[in-house]
């Protein structure tokens, strides 16, 4: 919350979300620049900084993509302004070239890059471990183990960054970003330095001449980390085993050691500076034991770096266990207290007795319906997928659909009638479609469609659109324009007309951009199911590149803005179970607002969740769904 991260109350403790703590840490460091592209679980950080930007005398932007964000921060850093860059793990891969180059040029004003990983990919397409990128690019990295550390590490990151003249990465995971815990506030700076003048011979240049300097910086970071308070050992002097852990693994390990009564047998070596590792510090502690278990999120990154240390130190006679090979710990997936405790119990031969739980035999257990993800009530994507699916069926040409990343990724699931044939990454759909669309020259006849959201359009589809146009691929590019980055919580993007700081900006028209590239553009309303179906049908018959913008505002935004009309079912008219439509409204349309009245055997509207979009009215063959009142749609 904005008031909390800007509270001038040093020493006061608040319950803070990890993302709030990170924003607070950056504010305590006196940043004047912040740039990010939204992505769960990182999105709240820049959202909050944007809201407090004016008050805290800083600039914040939702950049068009992660590369824009990082390079913008480099620009600010060149003028010795402290900057914060934020992204999720997928974004770090987008930014790979910039990252590896920036580590050669180094920075001037402190630059901290927060990368939020999503173990088990709760709201991602993959659980890529960002830490490989820090090592690959040769950048120092910190990993907070709780919310207090998240704040403190970000703040200290600026000192480190300026001391090394290097970008510093802070790697978090979902449970830190979206978890909450007590955080004790530090001081906010009274004054912030202004940007310096860039002299004629000032340079920030990323070329390989600076490789030696980059190596020197990482070596210097290592020696600083040797005495970092973010690393600590707690446990007996001659433990049976040492748990080396970082991030969320730390509290899971402490709880497991307590729960199993192993405090006298097991030591915990917590590492907060996970790249480069404080080698001497680690060797000193590992000499105390013969067995080491590494507990960390996603890949055996810490583990294999420790394996490296062990290889260089013959004095260490330890057995190393962890995620590598999947023997001691699961090779992938998010950690939790049970996995950690069970692993520890098994490795130490200790039994765990928890509270007594009931065992329900399977035949007595109530069958529970799975809670699948679906589009929200009134979501325009539901209408878009419905009409695209039916058009492809009507067209009878077995269209191939290339998906993309956003709320509409669910279009590949039941909610979208399993429409997708292909899904890769942001911007992947249009490029794959371009390629397949070129195969018509070899007799490929199926229509090819690519889908992308409005935010994704700006993020990564522009080069793809230029490519598809220039090479005149036979494809239909569908932009699902819901005027929102809804998946991650409604951050504005260049099409919206509002900045992260709440200022008005001239919105960039997707239609005009596509037209300027030379594409024929059709704009249609996905809520007009039959009209838009005809348009898509006609477009699919035309050769070459076509762009279709399906424009209708995200229901979650609409419902905040207008009075909700009442939609209801006239059960006299509804054909019901008795004759005919097979519950078309609830079974096929599948909006959470269209439910079944099992007692009456008729359709019904769940008026609590219905937002009054009224699309189902046009789908009911009996004309039984009615609407009254409310403001007009989008």
């Amino acid at each position: 919350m904005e008031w909390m991260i800007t509270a001038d109350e040093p020493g006061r403790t608040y319950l803070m979300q990890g993302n709030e703590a990170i924003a607070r840490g950056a504010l305590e460091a006196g940043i004047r620049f912040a740039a990010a592209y939204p992505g769960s679980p990182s999105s709240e950080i820049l959202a909050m900084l944007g809201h407090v930007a004016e008050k805290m005398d800083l600039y914040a932007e939702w950049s068009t993509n992660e590369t824009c964000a990082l390079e913008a921060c480099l620009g600010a850093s060149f003028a010795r302004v402290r900057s914060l860059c934020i992204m999720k793990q997928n974004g770090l891969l987008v930014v790979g070239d910039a990252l590896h180059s920036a580590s050669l040029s180094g920075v001037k004003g402190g630059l901290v890059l927060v990368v939020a990983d999503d173990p088990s990919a709760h709201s991602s397409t993959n659980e890529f471990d960002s830490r490989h990128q820090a090592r690959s690019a040769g950048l120092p990295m910190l990993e907070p183990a709780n919310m207090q550390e998240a704040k403190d590490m970000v703040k200290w990151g600026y000192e480190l960054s300026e001391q090394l003249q290097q970008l510093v990465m802070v790697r978090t995971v979902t449970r830190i970003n979206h978890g909450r815990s007590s955080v004790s506030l530090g001081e906010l700076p009274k004054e912030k330095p202004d940007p310096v003048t860039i002299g004629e011979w000032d340079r920030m240049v990323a070329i390989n001449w600076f490789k030696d300097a980059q190596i020197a910086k990482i070596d210097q970071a290592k020696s600083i980390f040797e005495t970092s308070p973010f690393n600590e050992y707690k446990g007996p002097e001659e433990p049976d085993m040492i748990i080396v852990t970082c991030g969320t693994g730390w509290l899971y390990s402490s709880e497991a050691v307590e729960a199993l009564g192993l405090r006298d047998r097991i030591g915990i070596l917590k590492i907060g500076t996970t790249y480069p590792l404080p080698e001497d510090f680690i060797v000193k502690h590992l000499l105390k034991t013969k067995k080491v278990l590494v507990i960390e999120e996603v890949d055996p990154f810490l583990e294999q770096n420790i394996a490296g240390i062990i290889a260089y130190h013959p004095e260490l006679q330890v057995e190393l266990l962890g995620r590598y090979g999947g023997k001691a710990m699961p090779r992938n997936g998010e950690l939790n207290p049970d996995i950690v405790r069970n692993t520890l119990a098994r490795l130490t031969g200790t039994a765990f007795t928890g509270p007594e739980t009931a065992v329900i035999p399977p035949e007595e257990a109530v069958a529970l319906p799975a809670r699948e993800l679906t589009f929200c009530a009134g979501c325009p994507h539901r209408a878009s997928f419905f009409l695209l699916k039916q058009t492809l069926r009507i067209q009878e040409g077995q269209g191939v659909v290339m998906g993309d990343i956003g709320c509409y990724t669910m279009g590949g699931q039941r909610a979208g009638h399993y429409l997708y044939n292909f899904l890769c990454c942001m911007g992947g759909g249009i490029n794959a479609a371009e390629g397949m669309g070129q195969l018509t020259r070899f007799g490929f006849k199926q229509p090819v469609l690519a889908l992308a959201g409005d935010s994704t359009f700006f993020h990564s589809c522009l080069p793809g659109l230029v490519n598809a146009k220039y090479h005149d691929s036979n494809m239909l590019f569908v932009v699902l324009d819901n005027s929102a980055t809804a998946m991650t919580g409604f951050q504005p993007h260049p099409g919206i007309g509002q900045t992260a700081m709440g200022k008005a900006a001239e919105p960039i028209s997707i239609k005009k951009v596509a037209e300027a590239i030379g594409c024929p553009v059709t704009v249609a309303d996905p809520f007009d199911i039959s009209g838009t179906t005809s348009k898509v049908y006609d477009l699919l018959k035309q050769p070459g590149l076509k762009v279709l913008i399906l424009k209708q505002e995200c229901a979650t935004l609409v419902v905040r803005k207008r009075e909700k009309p009442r939609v209801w079912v006239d059960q006299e008219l509804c054909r019901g179970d008795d004759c005919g439509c097979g519950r078309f409204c609830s079974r096929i349309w599948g909006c959470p607002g269209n439910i079944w009245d099992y007692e009456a055997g008729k359709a019904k509207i769940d008026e609590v969740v219905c937002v009054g979009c009224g699309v189902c009215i046009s789908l009911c063959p009996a004309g039984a769904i009615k609407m009254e009142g409310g403001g007009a749609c989008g």
Partner: protein
Amino acid sequence: MGKELVKDPLNIIICGVGGQGNILATELLASALVEKGYFTTVGETYGASQRGGSVMSHVRISAANEYGVLIPLGQADIIVSFEPTDTLRVARDYANKSTLILTDSRPNYPLGVLIGEAVYPSMEAIETELKKLSREVMIIEATRMAVEAGNSQATNILLMGSLTALPQVPLTAEDYDKVMEQRFKGEALELNRKVFKIGYEHINR
């Protein structure tokens, strides 16, 4: 520092379906606990919360030290749920024979039920199994009461009222009111106060 807890750590799960407001309710609860001086951590799953998925918050309260954000299986002391099948789903994983369960009775139909491929179980069947899994089950028609009080969106705060009224929870109605005062203004504050009181008195009558 707050008073000694009936159990340390005290583990509370607040769950429901995305969009029901359990994240906000949990955040208020945990803030009130931090204000009382307890180490309080909250683990949340969302991101999917706008889109009908199950959403669960873990609250861990300790007078001694900080705990990780996730509650181990079978170790929830209290489960507060906005949706009956989610109550059962969570109870199967996290309840034990001392667990107290507080649940709304209003179904939120998942996609499979809407399209007629899956059957939504009866409240009686859910209750029977919940009783086997826990010590006590309290069914509260929270949504209905919130709708009667003015807004279904306030169901979350109503259930927080009921939770706060439980003797195991080291908070008073005033403690929760303080954080509501920090977060809400005007009509929203009045509505939330009203439904909190309804939920509180429902348990404490």
